[in-house]
């Protein structure tokens, strides 16, 4: 579900070309418009149902599933989640992992991307080829293997085991490399003439210019690690290390004697959607624009 976002940021400012001179019949036009509205409603409706149901009672949720107005408005589901469950712990764990992973990926991806784009050293081609090859390994086939290695390293069931394997993302390196290749060398040359070392040039000259690409990495890694499930399933067993995804998944499969409890499950799902939704709305313009640049060329 990760969006394909590329930082071909130079292209982002270009306004979309209007299809001028197009004369669609007004009737057909409004018909299509209506169709689009219907589709948009279908896409949004589930989320409205989700929020509405989280404020319903169990019985109300079961009998009036499609109603967007709770018969009796109750915050019992949220109370139960926050006061009488491990939900706050799950949220904290997800936040810790996500923030660390974001910072790590931004740093490591830009470091490696810069080296691959600008520094000349033996083995560069091989490293880049390896990274591209790694991008092709599907993550689900790594479930068992990752557990084996984390276990062998003694990282199993620890924050380190949850975070370190996620710190590097081949796509991020790829994006940063492409970005650095697209900016002119002259600025760095000047800094080098002034006697700055390689890291210093990277850190204080090049990196600040890379903000659009870095935002892309932040979005991708935030979304990726916040929504990650399978890695945490195999990397941890302690309840203290349960993340939101793992916790809500166990909530969903539920315990038989406690009934269906849809309001509490949907409340949990709604809350876990909020951070990515906020990120999405903050960077909406960036997401829409960069993906427009993605297919150019």
């Amino acid at each position: 579900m990760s969006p394909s976002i590329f930082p071909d940021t130079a292209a982002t400012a270009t306004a979309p070309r209007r299809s001028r001179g197009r004369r669609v019949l007004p009737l057909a036009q409004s018909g299509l418009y209506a169709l689009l509205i219907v589709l948009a409603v279908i896409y949004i409706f589930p989320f409205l149902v989700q929020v509405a149901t989280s404020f319903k009672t169990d019985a109300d949720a079961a009998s009036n599933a499609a109603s967007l107005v709770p018969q009796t408005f109750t915050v019992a589901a949220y109370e139960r989640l926050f006061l009488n469950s491990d939900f706050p712990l799950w949220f904290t764990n997800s936040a810790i992992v996500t923030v660390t992973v974001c910072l790590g990926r931004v740093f490591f991806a830009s470091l490696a991307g810069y080296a691959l784009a600008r520094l000349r050293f033996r083995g560069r081609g091989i490293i880049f080829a390896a990274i591209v090859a790694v991008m092709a390994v599907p993550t689900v086939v790594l479930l068992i293997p990752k557990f084996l290695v984390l276990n062998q390293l003694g990282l199993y069931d620890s924050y380190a085991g949850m975070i370190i394997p996620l710190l590097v993302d081949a796509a991020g390196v790829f994006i940063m490399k492409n970005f650095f290749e697209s900016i002119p060398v002259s600025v760095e040359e000047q800094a080098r003439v002034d006697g700055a070392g390689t890291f210093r040039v990277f850190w204080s000259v090049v990196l600040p210019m890379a903000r659009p690409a870095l935002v892309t990495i932040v979005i991708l890694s935030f979304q990726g690690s916040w929504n990650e499930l399978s890695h945490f399933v195999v990397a941890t067993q302690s309840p203290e290390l349960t993340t939101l995804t793992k916790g809500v998944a166990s909530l969903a499969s539920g315990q038989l004697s406690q009934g269906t409890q849809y309001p509490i499950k949907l409340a949990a799902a709604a809350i876990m959607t909020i951070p990515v939704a906020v990120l999405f709305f903050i960077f909406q313009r960036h997401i829409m624009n960069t993906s427009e640049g993605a297919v150019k060329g």
Partner: protein
Amino acid sequence: MRRTKQTAIAAGGVALAAALALTGCGQGFDDSSDSASNDGLTSSDDPLTVMYNPSGDAEKEALVAAIAAWSAESGVEVEPVATDVTNSTTALTQGFAAGNPPDLFYLGPDLLAGYAANGSLQAYGDELSNKDDFYPSLVENFTVDGQFYCAPKDQSTLALVINTDLWEAAGLTDADLPTTWDQLDAAATALTTDGRTGLTFGAEYQRVGTFMAQAGGGLVSEDGATAVADSAENAAALAYVKSHLEDGTFAYPKDLGAGWGGEAFGKQLAAMTIEGNWITGAMSADFPDLNYRVVELPSGPAGQGTMQFTNCWGMAADSPNQQAALELVEYLTSADQQLTFSAAFGPMPSVQSAADQWQADNPDLAAFIDGSEYATGMPTSAGTSEVIADFNTQLESLATGDPAQILASVQANLESVVGG
């Protein structure tokens, strides 16, 4: 800036150290630990970890309280870790592979053989001071290759649970309480109305198996060494169930929109259900106003039959403090403690010395404890849990399936794990 540079180097260092650890001195796996043997238990000052998957808050609270009481008494620190059904097996498997499993944990007979085979379990049954107090049929459930592995923590059987209001509304009386399949049939038909089914039970061997037992069938022979799934008795039982799934007097809870029999029963989607004694806790919590009674399941062609369920307190072979764990198990399985648990969340004691008291405490639930006289347990050979899972899958479509064909495939699968 400098800090970042250091971070980079430090991070590289961490990764490098990790690489070295991998190539040289793996520490996650414990290669040296001995396989399960009962020649003495480990003992240390280490705290204990107890992993359990509670059926609900009542069980959680009762168990945590009991453990805290023992901990205070013995001075051994114990950490209870609650998990859920989905995660418990995964967590256990990962714990065994990682060499840091919980010291004690709930363990079903279906998983016992697999874990025993790879040496993950400590067989401590013979060390128990209250060993002879456990019901022999339960001990059987936890014995592999003649070794009594772990103490049954409690037991449950299945009985027929009837909604008394609906029963009376349908004009039925005590004289109509079913003691044969025909009578069950008649009662279910009388109770079936528009939007309500007479009888519901889960689409699984763990429920449908009662009919097989009543018909004189089962999955494996009494010694557990031969697969007997494709018998005429089993076929008769499935045909009986199938005919009533077809005519609508029986239904699976899922087809009624409920997660399990108790939920369908509580929501009055069905007037009767076949469930275990845990249903009492669920009813008082979720459907406190519902009036019901519990009677023994009817007899089939071969007499009475029901299913018996039990879990044991599994002990890890890798536990550093098995002696303390053993003492905790003895405490938790004592008659007094089991009666406390029973009052809190409904299971029946696994020790004989508690039976009389339990019956006195729960006169309405006598049918459950009476059932343990003739109950059948689940098969315990390694691999049978997968076979039963497959059987359950096929039972879901029993209404449209062919009983003989289903049983033939179960027979073939069973033969590959227990032998023909």
